[in-house]
C-alpha cells in the first residue's frame, strides 16, 4: 500500500467517525500531537494530586477526608490510564515523565496556584474539575480510540469530583459568615485561573486548526470557555457567591454571558514557569522520582531474580 493510500484510508476513517486504533497507520504529526496532548493531560492529573493531597491530613472531618482520598486516588488512576494511552502510541512513560521534570512538557497551569484554605478544595472540585469536564466530555468523541475510551471512564469520575466540590462549598455557603467568606475568597482566587484552563484565545492557539480537522478536538478553546462560563454563573448564584468580574453580564442577543478579557500576561507568565507554585510542584515530582529510584531498582532486581529462579 502506498503512503497515499494509507493517508486516504486514515482520512476516510476520520470523516466517517471511525476511531483510529493503535495499529492503524496515522500521520506522524497526528501521533506526535496526541502524545503531546495525552501526556500533558497525564502530567496534569499527577501534578494535580499535590495541591489537594496537601489537604488530606487537614480535612475537617472523616467524611471529607475519605472523599478527598478517593478523589486524589482517582486522579492518580487517571494519570495511569493516560500514560498507558501514550504508550499505545509508542511513547515511553518514563521518558514523558522526564520531559515533565526538565520543563519540556507542560501540565495544566491551574495547579501552579496554591490551595490555601479548605474552601480551595471545594473550589478546585467545582471550578477546576468543572472546567476539565467541559474539555473532557468533548474528548470522549476524540478520533483516537484509546484516548476516547479512557475519557469516558475519566469523565464519570470527574463528574463526581465536580459535585463533591460544589456540595462542599454549599456547606460553607450555608454555614457561618466566616465560612462563606472563605468560599468567596476561594472563588476570587480560582475564577480567572479556571477560565485560563481552556488555553489561549482561538486566534492565538497554535495547535487548534489541525487538531479540529483531525477531530482530536471537537470545539475551540473559546467555545469551551464560553460553555463553562454559561454553566457556572447560575451555580455561583445558587451558592450566593459573587463572580469576581464586573463585566459579567447576560447577553440576550448572543444567548451567552459576556465576560472580561483574561489577563493574558499572567497566563503566559505561569505557563513560562513564573506562577506562585511552579517551582514547588516540579520539585515535589522530581524529588518523588529521585527518592523512589532505589525502590524501583529493588523491584526490578527482585523481578529478575524470580524470573531466573523460575527458568532455572
Amino acid at each position, binding site marked *: 500500500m502506498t503512503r497515499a493510500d494509507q493517508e486516504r484510508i486514515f482520512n476516510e476513517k476520520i470523516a466517517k467517525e471511525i476511531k483510529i486504533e493503535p495499529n492503524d497507520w496515522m500521520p506522524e504529526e497526528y501521533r506526535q500531537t496526541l502524545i503531546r496532548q495525552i501526556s500533558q493531560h497525564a502530567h496534569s492529573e499527577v501534578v494535580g494530586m499535590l495541591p489537594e493531597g496537601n489537604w*488530606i491530613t487537614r480535612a*475537617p472531618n*472523616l467524611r471529607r*477526608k*475519605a472523599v478527598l*482520598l478517593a478523589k486524589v*486516588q482517582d486522579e492518580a488512576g487517571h494519570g495511569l490510564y493516560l500514560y498507558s494511552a501514550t504508550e499505545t502510541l509508542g511513547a515511553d512513560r518514563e521518558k514523558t515523565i522526564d520531559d515533565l521534570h526538565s520543563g519540556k512538557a507542560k501540565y495544566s497551569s491551574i495547579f501552579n496556584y496554591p490551595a490555601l484554605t*479548605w474552601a480551595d478544595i471545594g473550589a478546585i472540585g467545582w471550578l477546576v474539575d468543572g472546567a476539565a469536564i467541559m474539555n473532557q466530555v468533548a474528548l470522549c468523541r476524540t478520533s483516537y480510540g484509546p484516548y476516547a475510551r479512557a475519557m469516558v471512564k475519566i469523565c464519570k469520575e470527574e463528574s463526581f469530583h465536580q459535585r463533591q466540590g460544589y456540595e462542599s462549598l454549599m456547606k460553607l455557603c450555608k454555614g457561618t459568615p466566616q*465560612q462563606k467568606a472563605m468560599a468567596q475568597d476561594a472563588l476570587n482566587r480560582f475564577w480567572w485561573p479556571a477560565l485560563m484552563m481552556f488555553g489561549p484565545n482561538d486566534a492565538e492557539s497554535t495547535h487548534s486548526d489541525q487538531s479540529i480537522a483531525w477531530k482530536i478536538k471537537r470545539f475551540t478553546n473559546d467555545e469551551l470557555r464560553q460553555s463553562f462560563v454559561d454553566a457556572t454563573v447560575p451555580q455561583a448564584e445558587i451558592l450566593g457567591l459573587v463572580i469576581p468580574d464586573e463585566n459579567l453580564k447576560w447577553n440576550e442577543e448572543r444567548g451567552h454571558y459576556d465576560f472580561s478579557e483574561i489577563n493574558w500576561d499572567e497566563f503566559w507568565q505561569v505557563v513560562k514557569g513564573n506562577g506562585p507554585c511552579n517551582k514547588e510542584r516540579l520539585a515535589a515530582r522530581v524529588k518523588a522520582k529521585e527518592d523512589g529510584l532505589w*525502590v524501583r531498582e529493588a523491584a526490578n532486581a527482585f523481578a529478575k531474580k524470580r524470573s531466573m529462579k523460575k527458568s532455572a
Partner: protein
Amino acid sequence: MNEAALYEYVLRMSDDSLILGQRLGEWCGHGPILEEDIAMTNIALDLVGQAISLYDFAVLLEGKDRDHDQLAYLRYENEYKNLLLVEQPNGDFAMTMLRQFFFDAFRLPLFEFLEKSPVEQLAAIAQKSLKETRYHLKHSSEWVIRLGDGTEESHRRAQAAVDHLWRYTHELFYENQHDVELQENGLVPKLSDVQASWMITVQEVLKEATLAIPTNNWKFEGGREGRHSEHMGYILSELQYMQRAYPNMEW
C-alpha cells in the same frame, strides 16, 4: 456486656486505623511510583472508612451522644489509644512498608477472630474489613519481600526498618484488666492466639525477604494507655487543625 471495656477496645482499633490512615495520607503525590500513590491512598481510604465504622460503634457504646468526628477530632492527646507503631513517621518507603506489614499481620488474624464475635456490630465491621485487610497484608508483604530480597541498598533499608520498628511490635499485644474481662466473656479473641498467628506471618515473610528478626528485646509501649511519642502532637495538630481553628462549624 461490659460496655466501658468494649468502648476502650473499639476506640483503640478506631484510633489505630485513623492514625495509620493519616500517616499514609502524607505520602499522597510523593510515592516512588504512580501505582504506589494509588495503593497507599487506597489503603488510607480503607483505614479511614474502618475508623468511621469503628468510631460510630464506639459512640454508641459510650452513650454520650457524641458523633464520630467528635471522637476523631476533639480529644486530647492522652485520650487517643492508638499503638506507638502507627504514629511512627513514614521515613523512607521501606519504613512505611514495614510499619504497614507489622500492623497488617496483626489486623488480619484479629479481624478473622472478631468476625466470629458475639458482639454483632463488631463482627459486622470485622467482616467488612477483612477483605480490605487481606489485600493490605498481601501488598505490604510483597513489598517487604521485594525490598528485602531486591538490591543491596533496599535490603539495608528494609533491615534498618525492621530493626527500628521491632521495639514497637510488642505493644500490638498489650492487655489490661478490660481485655482480660472481654476475653473471659468470649467477646473478643485471646491476644495470645492473635500473636501466634502474627508471629507465623512475620517469620515466614521476613525469611523469604532474607531479613533477620532482631534479637534485642527492646519493648516500647504507652500508646494504649495514652502515653505517646513526640510525633503524636504534630499528627494531631494537622488532623485537628480545622476543628480547632474553626470550632463548632459544619463542613
